[in-house]
């Protein structure tokens, strides 16, 4: 048995990996090209553009520096994009983000196959899972963009992979590798913090199981080593918060207080950027409902139910074995992290830590229907977070028997076919929600613009800034420290142009401009463009 597995694994290692890398890369590139050629849909998401711009602003800004990373989003994907966005072409086409996300996609695809094989020792099941990953239209779409979801999926897969390896081998290398990828994941998305909690639980359980008879001090020591490694990402972000916001727990206070700062808020810590938007809280049942809905949307109903089936099956096996035995214990990371992640996602959404998700109203109970921001449509993508877990559980089910494998494969094929035939037939498609379009205000502005600094709120006008094609040194926005603060009191001090939209709730220029500043605006500036609330002022 061992020999067969070793031989199979040898084959996988030597040949299949290369093939899968190449295939995944080709699929990734094809998707990127497709969505770019079809109206630059890779730039259709506001957050994606904002992330590209954050990376750009680190070097191209009135106040360049690491502080441009801001306080809302974890920085790792943006940091990786910094060298790429130095190229105007890669920046403006969004390819800088696509390259990062696409690379993560490829690695994630291969590793999800490796992990499935590691768990099930079933080559067919592992390839099926690989296919289910790369054929997920939403993942394919997301990996064309400068977003963090795909990066998160890959990091999660790596964490699961190395934790599983460690449980099998108990080698230091695997243990530390899992810690390393936890650093990555906790610098990628806040959901990574939940993964960290889950992983800590996994390590604790395994250490207690394996070492408590040796010595409890060994358990303690291993936990400390784990937390020293895995917790470094959180520590770094706390240090960042301290350096730039004078608050180690800036990230926690930010979300727990319901203050949603602008995505480009940087060193300026004042009421000029701290705007508390209404926090949306739900009942637990509604939060559960909403979150499961988006999981179904993003992963496909059939895939999700297969995954759920796999979960029940696995749980049954584990209970039957009394949670003992290496064959069962190696599934522990997957089980525990899946449960913890899901639980915290629902809880986080219920408490309002996680931004609102816009669902068709009929899915939301009447009492919980609140106003949504324009961003909440795209937040449906949060449902993809559990994709690796769902796919791995599906893989477990598929590996259980040949019949199950065939059924699952056919069901997935049916889902895929139906979606190709009629998008959203099974409520499984995201791309059509985010067409990229050129803002109508850009051309008129460029006609007017000769030179000079522009005071504008990046929170609401990130895409405008992006589409003008002007270097970011030209803009005075929330992240330009004293330039921003002083301009809101006296726009004439630094700015030659002032742009805002008084119809947009998140327009920080309009919202934070002092009364004196408005007087100066009237006195010293000409209103040269005013359409649908979008106003452009020019210094006389």
């Amino acid at each position: 048995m061992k020999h067969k597995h070793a031989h199979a694994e040898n084959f996988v290692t030597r040949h299949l990996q290369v093939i899968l890398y190449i295939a995944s890369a080709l699929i990734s590139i094809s998707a990127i090209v497709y969505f770019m050629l079809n109206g630059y849909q890779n730039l259709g998401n506001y957050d994606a553009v904002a992330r590209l711009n954050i990376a750009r602003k680190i070097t191209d800004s009135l106040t360049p520096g690491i502080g441009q990373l801001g306080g809302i989003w974890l920085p790792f994907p943006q940091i990786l994009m910094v060298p790429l966005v130095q190229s105007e072409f890669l920046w403006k086409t969004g390819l800088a983000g696509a390259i990062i996300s696409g690379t993560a996609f490829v690695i994630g695809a291969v590793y999800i196959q490796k992990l499935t094989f590691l768990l099930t020792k079933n080559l067919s099941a592992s390839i099926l899972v690989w296919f289910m990953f790369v054929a997920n239209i939403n993942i394919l779409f997301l990996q064309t963009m400068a977003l963090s979801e795909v990066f998160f999926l890959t990091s999660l897969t790596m964490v699961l992979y190395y934790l599983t390896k460690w449980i099998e081998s108990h080698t230091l290398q695997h243990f530390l590798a899992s810690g390393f990828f936890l650093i990555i994941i906790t610098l990628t998305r806040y959901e990574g913090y939940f993964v960290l909690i889950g992983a800590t639980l996994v390590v604790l359980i395994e250490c207690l199981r394996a070492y408590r008879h040796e010595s409890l001090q060994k358990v303690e020591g291993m936990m400390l080593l784990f937390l020293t490694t895995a917790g470094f990402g959180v520590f770094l972000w706390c240090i960042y918060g301290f350096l730039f916001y004078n608050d180690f727990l800036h990230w926690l206070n930010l979300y727990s207080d319901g203050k949603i700062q602008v995505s480009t808020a940087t060193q300026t810590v004042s009421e000029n950027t701290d705007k508390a938007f209404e926090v949306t809280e739900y009942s637990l049942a509604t939060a559960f409902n909403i979150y499961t809905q988006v999981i179904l949307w993003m992963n496909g109903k059939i895939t999700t139910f297969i995954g759920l089936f796999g979960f029940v099956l696995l749980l049954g096996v584990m209970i039957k074995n009394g949670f003992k035995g290496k064959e069962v214990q190696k599934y522990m990371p997957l089980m525990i992290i899946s449960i913890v992640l899901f639980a915290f996602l629902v809880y986080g959404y219920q408490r309002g830590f996680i931004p609102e998700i816009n669902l068709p109203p009929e899915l939301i109970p009447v009492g919980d229907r609140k106003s949504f921001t324009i961003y909440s449509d795209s937040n449906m993508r949060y449902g993809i977070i559990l994709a690796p877990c769902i796919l791995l559980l599906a893989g477990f089910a598929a590996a259980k028997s040949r019949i199950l494998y065939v059924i699952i494969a056919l069901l997935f094929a049916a889902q895929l076919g139906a979606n190709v035939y009629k998008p959203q037939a099974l409520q499984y498609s995201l791309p059509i929600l985010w067409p990229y379009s050129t803002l109508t205000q850009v051309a008129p502005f460029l006609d007017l613009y000769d030179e000079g600094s522009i005071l504008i709120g990046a929170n609401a006008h990130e895409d405008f800034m992006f589409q003008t094609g002007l270097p970011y040194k030209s803009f005075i926005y929330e992240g330009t420290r004293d330039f921003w603060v002083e301009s809101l009191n006296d726009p004439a001090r630094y700015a030659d142009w002032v742009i805002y939209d008084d119809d947009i709730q998140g327009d920080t220029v309009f919202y934070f401009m002092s009364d004196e500043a408005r007087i100066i605006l009237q006195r010293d500036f000409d209103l040269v463009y005013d359409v649908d609330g979008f106003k452009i002022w020019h210094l006389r």
Partner: protein
Amino acid sequence: MNSVQNISVIVPITVRNNDLQTYIESVKRSLAYISYTRNKPLQYEIIFVTNNASYISSDERALLQSYGPISFHDESKHAGDALLFQKGISYANYAVQIFLNANLKIAPEALGDAIIKVMQGTDVVVTISGSQRDTSLLAIQKNTDAKALIFTKEVSDSFQGIPFLDKTYIIEFLRRANEAGFSVLKYQNDKNAQSVLSPFAAIKNTVRAGLYYLSVKFKKVNPIHTASTENNSMINAGVRYKKQKFITHSTLSFKDSAINSFTLKQILLSILFIDLVLLGLRFDIILLAQITFAILSVFYLVDVLFNFFLVFKTVKGSSELSFSKNELDQLEDSNLPIYTILCPLYKEAHMLGHFLDGIAKIEWPPEKLDVLLLLEEDDTESIETIARMDLPGYVRTLVVPTSQPKTKPKACNYGLAFARGEFVVIFDAEDIPDPLQLKKAYLGFKSSDRNVVCLQAKLNYHNSTQNLLTRFFTAEYSWLFDISLPGLQSLNTIIPLGGTSNHFRKADLITLQGWDPFNVTEDADLGLRIYRLGYRTAILDSVTLEEANSNVLNWIRQRSRWVKGYMQTYLVHTRDMLPLLRARGPQALMLHFVIGGRILFIFVNPLLWIVTISYFSFKAIVGPVLEETYSPIILYTAVISLVLGNYLYILGYVLGCVKREQWSLIKYVFLIPFYLLLISVAGCMAFYQLLFKPYYWEKTVHGLHLKKQEEVKNNLKVPNYALPKFMQKQSAFGGN
């Protein structure tokens, strides 16, 4: 006292002298006087050296040779007084040598008395005019009368090849002899003799003499090596320097030794550096601060990357030499060679039982074990205690004759000469080695290429949980031997050896010329010398347990010695980097991080922490100044170094404890920054000692874990910080 009765008389002839016959008779009368006075016959030879063969005709030579054992040597006509002097010495065969100017007016008895002084033990005697009150070198140079120089062959051999100058060779000879620790006597002969010079001539003479004197006074005098007294051995070899005779039992050149802490080049560079700093302070303190922080930041960043690489390399896979039980069991006792264990002891008789217990557990055929206990001659307590003990047959004691420097490496050099084994290892008295260590080392040598001349076993502590200090100390050693050194090995670079458990082939150790007895971390020095000479050290997967210092004061003293030794090692091995770079390539530059960086950080870390804490605590006051000092790119570099550097350090310590399975220590690792502060304190002490007491060996008190608190207090005496070494008659050397 010299017991020789043989004399060589060397006579330079630089002008025609028609009265050599009388001269020879006068010399023979002196020799007769000596023979009569000492009541012993003499053997002598008279050697004439001349720079003009025509000064003594062949007939004259034949006639003079009939008077006794007389030889004539003709040198080049360009040969001056100094060369004739050196040539004459080279022809001399006997133990007492006299350099006698043919114009010297001296009574035979007076000359004889002067010679007798040398026979009685004085190394050098120079005869000077009786009217000369001032017997300083300047006065000797001023005095134009002829002089006689009498000295032993040991003295003349020491100055072979040194280029003396004609006008100053006498005072230079005297100065060098004095600096080399030879006894020098200025013997006033004819008290009535006076040199008569005109006033103008006297002034001219004085000025000229003064200049010559200064040229000699400030001339660099290098140490002089003294040869071993036995063939094919380094026994009794040594060096003479700064008026002392050191018996090192090593032929290591002074250029590779810490006998000199600083070379002239290093002193000049230091002065230049200080001048630049002073200039900066005077004219633009901000610019000085900017440059300083920029350099430090870059250096720290490189060190961070280096540490990351070390950790990564170690975690990725161990490069230590490791052997399975099967491989070890396959060794046949009959095939094993003799293995020598050197154990230097000084006032550590109380540890001997513990040591012998550890040795008894070593798995090596007893008949092939050669344990040498190296005792100092003045350690009578240990000698007597051991004499009363019933020692196993494989244990020998060796009493190291008292000589300076009195250090552990000197004792080891001495012991090396008596080692019977093909392999040699050093253990300290408090060591508990892995019983299989010798076998592992033996296999290690067999399986490594010939370039590997040293195997370093890992060191750790058996009393790790005694108190907080021992916990820190143990964590540090775990990091060093389980993370840092294996990482260095994988980079094929410098490995500073640990204090014990270094295994060598005896022949290689002799090729390396043993240990430097002037370096208080002779192990680190040897590790670097191994690297410089193109050899390698490998880490052996075997552990020797030692006793961690559990008393803070004792720890600081021990650590100050280590830091001082590292400084000495760094200074010695950076004297000339070019040959090292040519021989070992750019990897040789790692010396600056492995040794130099460690030393630098000891002093700089506390300052940078003060700067960092001040910035956040007193931002309103110091913030603007510091912000001006740190340009953005340097600021990023510094912050990355601060955060990542400290993180990697702590992670490295944690990993070291994990590899050693010292689970209970891990939580204490997070307090390591306080421990590092303690190292900085020791560093300051080390720097002071480097300047004023470079060879002083801070003796570590061992066995603290065995004793009660009262006994601990009694053992710890307040160190006697004596005057700077050269201000006192007795050496500043401490015990081992």
